[in-house]
């Protein structure tokens, strides 16, 4: 969450929402949360566990990359 928060402060384009998985079981089910932390970006890119800054950024950029067709 820390990196996501700092990215949100760095860019007006970015929002970071921390979700307490046990309090919102419906959301957790919808996003198939099996392990935490689970990060979901634009409902398009997802991963579990902490990533170093560079790899986290790559995930963000993948989430906004044009879809390959």
């Amino acid at each position: 969450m820390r990196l996501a928060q700092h990215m949100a402060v760095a860019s007006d384009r970015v929002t970071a929402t921390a979700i307490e998985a046990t309090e919102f079981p419906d959301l957790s089910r919808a996003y198939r949360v099996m392990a935490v932390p689970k990060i979901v970006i634009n409902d398009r890119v997802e991963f579990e566990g902490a990533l170093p800054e560079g790899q986290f950024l790559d995930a963000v950029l993948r989430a906004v990359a044009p879809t390959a067709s």
Partner: protein
Amino acid sequence: MPILAERDQDAVRKEFQRIEGPVKLVVFSQELVAGDLCRQNEQLVREVAALDDRITVELLNPAIDRERTEAYGVDQVPAIVVEGARDYGLRFFGIPSGYEFSNLIDAIIVASSGEPALSEATRTALAGLTDDVHIKVFSTPT
């Protein structure tokens, strides 16, 4: 009974020495939806805010303050928005306890300055974003 033990309060006070400007915690509560959780969340936020006079708290009820709740993009309770000089898009759904508590403290500190601790390369890449990015981070208290 306070949620934060005296030792936790001291630790947070020490962290808050890094606060650089005013921070507003907007708390969303709806008794009929999740009364107990919302009350605990409110209490925790008030205890945190009491540790530094640069932190203020505003309470909104999504059923009454509909327009503002929608503008904040909040669709769950309990929820917290952490605002500094402006709304940076920092949201917490659910009570930020355990692991999330340290993130709440970190969110308050970074929102107070508007200065993220990120590398120059990351900042440059983020500055080039032309689409919105919504990051959800699911976690549990332990």
